[in-house]
């Protein structure tokens, strides 16, 4: 009979994992479960639910640091930060809607376990760059900690990096300590219209300037058409975002405009609330068809964006973030965007993840980017070094990992 365990303390968590090891009974680790539809289906009979490991422990706004239980809803954390004019600078995305769940439910543990970062990852780094310390229970059934609460720390291996993006396959995160940063007092987004290749080039030029562009995306006409922000629909757009103190934002927006406008490109701008709303739509993939059953996520060097558009533009709807380096492709089915076609386009210089697909498909094809044999073997050895009996989310990433 499948059981759901919901430990309420690190000791209870440790006991649960020890039990699973003793019984040889693998556990599926879930927070709010919003990303269950992503990745390989886990081969586990029982569920370990982290939502009772919740609550903000330490929050020192002056020190730019917070720690919280893994099961704390991200929404709770973001609300607390907003009260003090702060934010998570890696801009965690909410894929609740696109993955067929609701928005606003995910936990902070899930955000870090999936290394989720949004549009501002371009400038501010990914979730992994903001994780300072973790406490977790490994597949040895032991509590371990790594890192700390200070900004700079090279004491021992950086297990925080390893935990970020490991999808609960190495250890169950119980508490996390992370960096928080002041929220910009204002922002502006330059909206460029024109030919696709020129727009993609403009994105790369914008991030190669000293104007501290925090996000840069290309919205094909279909994506732009879904935006609720005035002035976005009607044409393909490049969006370039700057944040900071008022005068600095205005100055940088104008310099970027001088630099990018001309040669067939036009520009308009949106500010503050409109700008934030647009970037939420881009980050959370609201500009793609959420009913599309298949969603691919490609990471490539930004200069290859045009090539991706050419190769895959007719396979479904696309959206380009991170100056063109992050490509989303929403397709009507796997026939339109089969792995050979998508991964064939990406080749070695980048990778492609099947983020969403019916479960039968995720069971049969590699959803995570295929690794070279040597790298896969090393990933397997790392997994075995943390979870030798394979009781934590077995098979979530790769067979045996």
């Amino acid at each position: 009979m499948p059981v759901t365990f919901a430990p309420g303390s690190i000791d209870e968590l440790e006991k649960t994992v020890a039990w699973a090891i003793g019984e040889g009974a693998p556990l599926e680790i879930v927070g709010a479960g919003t990303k269950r539809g992503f990745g390989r289906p886990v081969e586990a009979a029982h569920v370990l639910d982290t939502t009772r490991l919740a609550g903000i422990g330490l929050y020192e706004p002056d020190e730019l640091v917070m720690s919280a239980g893994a099961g704390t809803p991200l929404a709770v954390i973001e609300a607390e930060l907003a009260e003090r004019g702060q934010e998570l600078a890696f801009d965690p995305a909410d894929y609740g809607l696109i993955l067929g769940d609701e928005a606003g439910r995910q936990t902070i543990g899930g955000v870090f376990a999936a290394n989720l970062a949004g549009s501002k990852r371009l400038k501010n780094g990914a979730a992994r760059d903001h994780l300072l310390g973790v406490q977790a229970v490994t597949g040895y059934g032991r509590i371990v900690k790594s890192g700390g609460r200070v900004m700079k720390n090279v004491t021992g291996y950086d297990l925080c990096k390893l935990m970020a993006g490991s999808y609960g396959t190495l250890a169950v995160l119980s508490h996390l300590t992370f960096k928080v940063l002041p929220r910009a007092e204002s922002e502006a987004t330059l909206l460029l219209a024109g030919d696709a290749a020129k727009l993609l080039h403009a994105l790369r030029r914008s991030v190669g300037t000293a104007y501290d562009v925090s996000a840069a995306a290309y919205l094909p006409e279909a994506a732009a058409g879904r935006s609720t922000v005035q002035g976005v629909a009607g044409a393909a757009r490049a969006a370039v975002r700057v944040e900071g103190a008022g005068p600095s934002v205005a100055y940088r927006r104008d310099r970027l405009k001088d630099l990018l406008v001309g040669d067939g490109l036009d520009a308009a701008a949106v500010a503050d609330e409109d700008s934030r709303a647009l970037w939420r739509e881009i980050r959370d993939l609201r500009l793609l068809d959420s009913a599309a059953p298949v969603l691919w996520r490609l990471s490539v060097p930004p200069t290859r964006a045009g090539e991706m558009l050419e190769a895959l533009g007719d396979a479904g709807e696309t959206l380009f973030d991170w100056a063109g380096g992050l490509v989303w492709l929403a397709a009507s089915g796997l026939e339109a965007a089969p792995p050979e076609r998508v991964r064939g386009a990406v080749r070695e210089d980048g990778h492609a993840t099947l983020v969403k697909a019916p479960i039968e498909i995720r069971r049969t094809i590699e959803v995570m980017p295929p690794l070279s044999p040597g790298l896969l073997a090393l990933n397997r050895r790392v997994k075995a070094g943390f979870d030798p009996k394979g009781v934590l989310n077995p098979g979530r990433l790769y067979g045996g990992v």
Partner: protein
Amino acid sequence: MPKPDAEVLRRRADLIDALRAIVPGEGVIVENAELRAYETDGLSVYRQVPLAVVLPETTAEVAEILKLCRRMGVKVVARGAGTGLSGGALPLEDGVVLGLSKFNRILDIDYENRAATVQPGVTNLGITRAVEHQGFYYAPDPSSQIACSIGGNIAENSGGVHCLKYGLTTNNVLGLEIVLPDGEILRLGGKHLDAAGYDLLGVMTGSEGLLGIVTEVTVRILQKPETARALLAGFSTVEQGGATVAAIIAAGVIPGGLEMMDRPAINAAEDFCHAGYPRDVEALLICELDGPAAEVDHLMGVVTGMARQHGATFLKESANDEERLKFWAGRKNAFPAAGRISPDYICMDGTIPRNQIAPVLRRMAELSDKHGLKVANVFHAGDGNLHPLILFDGNEPGQQARAEAFGADILKLCVEVGGVLTGEHGVGIEKRDLMPEMFNEDDLKQQQRLKCAFDPTQILNPGKVFPTLHRCAELGRMHVHKGRIPFPELERF
């Protein structure tokens, strides 16, 4: 250090022949006089002549050397420029030093993707030099940047004065080529973001030469800010200086650099390079603000106001870039400057929460009395990373031991106030035995299991970082207590 393996020492001649078959001629160093050049790194109180030094030029050679050493059970210590301050590159009597100095080429500069790919022996500053004619630079800037190698920076996850705003090495690396101890060559990441699989790029960074040899590095390059100006602010107490740092950060200002020095360090630096520092203050802040001119002007006003509010007795803004660099020259030369005022010094590297700066400095002064040794403080105040320089004379009997005991007390103090043993210099040999101050046995064993995934026979840099060496087979063992915890009791969770 681990006891030298007599069998390996006995087979030295065979090893040298085999190394010469891989790297011909000058690339294998065996003469004692020449080996002495490699006997220590930046932590010169420890010295050990290695069995041999090998200087390969290609990744294939590195792979062959590792395979050979693994087969013969010979330990390998990687070495970049040898500027490390924790003894990471300290040789082993029964080990080979694998020097990366011939890996000194810039391989690819890709401005449009903002990435530079270089060999690990290229110096940190060498990367900036290669891209600055296009207005770009590589942000992490250790004070040793003229000399230290990017491979060493990866191994130590090095920082510098600009890391407060732009991140440490780990936040600026995009890709690596590494060679595992069994000779397997792997690529992690590249010019795209988010390497596939586990974040082994993140794990390699800061792994102190224990997991693999780095043979190629791709880093992020950035466009230089339009303007940068620095402010010197002097205070008559360290409390005031510390409080100003805390206030700046709390106000949400993230300066390009925010450094602090105490009186002994100020005076040593001023003697050494006449940076224009005031000599009659107890604490000096150097705060650099960068960005568009309008933003820098605005923030300069904010920061100056805060310094005044906290009782600054000296305020000076850099009038031009030359003066700004002069302000930094004093700070960046603090170590050699300390070398001028004392025959020997050791540099500590603990990190503490920023609001603990003043209390920790006060207690450090008490420790200085207790151990009878002077200390000069320079530090990356903006991120709470201290660099107390403990001054001593190694020729005076007992002084080195006292200096080390003083250093250990400082680091314990850092941990006690919520900080850590090392912010950017690494554990190496220096802080190895203090690891239990921060980690319990489970924590340390888990870290070593990660090591075993990369290096199951533990030939890479053994004796560093971990106070106790466990065999991988022993670490992998798990005691399973089947049914120890009854199922019904669990259901209540």
